[in-house]
């Protein structure tokens, strides 16, 4: 899936230029300034302040009812904030109608127009913007080529599979050369295998269109981790965590973010040294002292949670492993390409994901777990503030 220069250079062509003019030429960032949305008095988005950088994929994740889709719909113009402002680029769009915002949008159920063929679906936005016939033909051909659907141009949506329909929906959104692309759980209607393939295609698409800013709403953390440059975690209408994907995964700022963004082992510990003196933080669990990344300033004696991802725990030592944790095996599950070992330490259950083991540990046996201080971070223990 490659993109020709017409897609990259044609942003100022007539139809898209008119739409883009409404949202500013200089930048394609998305900015929420303390945006609040309420339905009949119930606040569903609570003072959201967030910025999606130009060319960035930001994944907005959270459980149902967390406000992530509402945030996306506010950018699209389908819900009007009770307060706050939304900017696309340099222009405030809070009160602009959806058709004047110059955005592309792909939704969960594709929302293709059932009575239109693939070409008519893809050209819809260009026709709405009054593009010339030649430009429409070129752009439709180009967009269908990008998503690998040229040979399906004359089919109706009902004659396509779910994955193909989603590709057409993406081509339709890209055809107007939006500065901002909104993806609302675009893969959740697909089966697991096609979803994995589509995630890879979306990643490739963004490599080919690096200027495109994408707001990607999903509840699937693996999609977010694969695609996003940064992730914002929502809960109950509020932003709970936001940051670049890697650091946010490695050192989540709170328990909710740690547990929602992948599996996390959270071990209650007491802070011995927060990292002011030594390069590593030191924490104690029972009589055992462990090293961790000094990612936050915590006073000595503070109760905290040590966050270690399941795959960071190893059953055998490596040179970079600073910590050894004696545990008791509670359960061993073989899942084909991996073993999942559940262990217990000081009353806390931990999960270990390991490559397939030739000799899995026996249930009830003692097992030493090894992990690097760099893979362990500290979280505030909200139960013991």
């Amino acid at each position, binding site marked *: 899936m490659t993109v020709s220069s017409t897609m990259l250079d044609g942003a100022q062509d007539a*139809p898209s230029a008119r*739409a883009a003019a409404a949202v500013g030429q200089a930048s394609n960032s998305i900015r929420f300034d303390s945006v609040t949305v309420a339905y009949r008095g119930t606040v569903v988005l609570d003072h959201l302040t967030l910025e999606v950088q130009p060319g960035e994929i930001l994944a907005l994740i959270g459980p149902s009812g967390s406000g992530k889709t509402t945030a996306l719909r506010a950018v*699209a*113009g*389908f819900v009007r904030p009770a307060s706050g402002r939304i900017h696309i680029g340099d222009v405030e769009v809070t009160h602009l*109608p*959806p*058709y*004047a*915002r*110059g*955005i*592309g*949008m792909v*939704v*969960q*159920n594709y*929302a*293709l*127009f*059932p*009575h239109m063929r693939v070409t008519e679906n893809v050209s*819809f*936005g260009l026709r*709405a*913007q009054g593009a010339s016939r030649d430009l429409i033909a070129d752009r439709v051909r180009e967009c269908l080529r990008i998503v690998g659907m040229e040979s399906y141009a004359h089919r109706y949506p*009902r004659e396509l599979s779910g994955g193909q329909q989603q590709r057409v*929906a993406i081509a*339709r*959104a890209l055809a*107007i050369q939006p500065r901002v692309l*909104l993806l609302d759980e675009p893969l959740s209607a697909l089966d697991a295998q096609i979803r994995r393939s589509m995630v890879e295609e979306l990643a490739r698409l963004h490599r080919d269109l690096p200027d495109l800013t994408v707001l990607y709403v999903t509840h699937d953390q693996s999609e977010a981790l694969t695609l996003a440059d940064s992730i914002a975690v929502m809960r109950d209408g509020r932003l709970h965590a936001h940051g670049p994907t890697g650091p946010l995964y490695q050192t989540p700022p709170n328990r909710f973010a740690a547990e929602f963004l992948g599996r996390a082992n959270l071990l209650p510990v007491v802070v011995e040294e927060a990292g002011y003196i030594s390069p590593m933080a030191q924490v104690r669990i029972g009589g055992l002292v462990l090293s961790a990344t000094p990612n936050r300033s915590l006073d000595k004696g503070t109760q905290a949670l040590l966050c270690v991802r399941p795959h960071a725990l190893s059953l055998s030592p490596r040179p970079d492993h600073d910590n050894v944790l004696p545990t008791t095996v509670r359960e061993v599950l073989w899942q084909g390409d991996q073993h999942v070992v559940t262990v217990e330490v000081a009353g806390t259950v931990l999960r270990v994901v390991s490559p397939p083991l030739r000799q899995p540990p026996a249930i009830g046996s003692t097992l030493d777990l090894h992990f690097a201080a760099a893979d362990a971070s500290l979280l505030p223990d909200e139960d013991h503030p």
Partner: protein
Amino acid sequence: MTQAVDGRPLPRALPGGATLWVVPPLLVVAALFAYPLALILRQALTGDGDAASLDHFAAVLGTRAFRSALANTVEIALAATAGCLAVGLALALLLSFVPFPGSGAVARLVDTFIALPTFLVTLAFTFLYGSAGMVNAGLVDVFHLAAPPVDFLYSPWGVILAEVTVYCPFVMRPLMAAFSLIDRAQIEVASSLGARPGRIIRQVILPAALPALLAGGSLCLLLTVNEFGIVLFIGAKGVITLPLLIYDKAIQEFDYTAACVIAVINVALSLTLFSLYRLAVGKLGGRHAAVV
């Protein structure tokens, strides 16, 4: 034979051969519809004699009264159907896509017109727009006029307005049902792509609702072609339609043969319209399979 999971045959829903169950409804239809229709057709072909011929048809078709009634029937039916389509579509769009407080109550209020007898609406029109109705009385009082200024009720326009009022729910309801099936995300995506409301209605909503529009319009056309009560009650001057002509011939002139000839033509007209409707829906069914 349908097999259960464990291999045993499932019991039949009804005993006896499937074709046998067609007989009772066929008998009912024959007794209530086909037999009286056959009697009318026989009277139209034979008159008071025994030999069947088309002479009676030729005689009736040649009269000015019949041609005038046919023209009135078609004109009023087409105009009323167009009015029903326009008003029904506007109301359905408004109630479905521009929700406002009380929109549900308005929809139910419009629905009640279906439940009311047609003469009641006509009676209400008489009280409103008749020469001594509220509108005329008010205008005469306010402007000290010598004669009532509103004088359309007893013209074809009065019949058309009454029929639009009575039959527009037959367009509105199927349209609202069709609109409720349209994925709102399609409308939102169309809007995000730069389409304004007019384009969305033309290119997204109406194509999806075309079968419903056709169904409602055809139903209106059928009902207005055969409308009797409104035309009779308004008693519009010079507005004689085919049903009214049948009534005149049969009840006032006792010319049953002419009445039967006109009735046969009226039925043929209705069945032709119905066939055209089925044909249109059948043709569109393929392209609009998502909503048919």
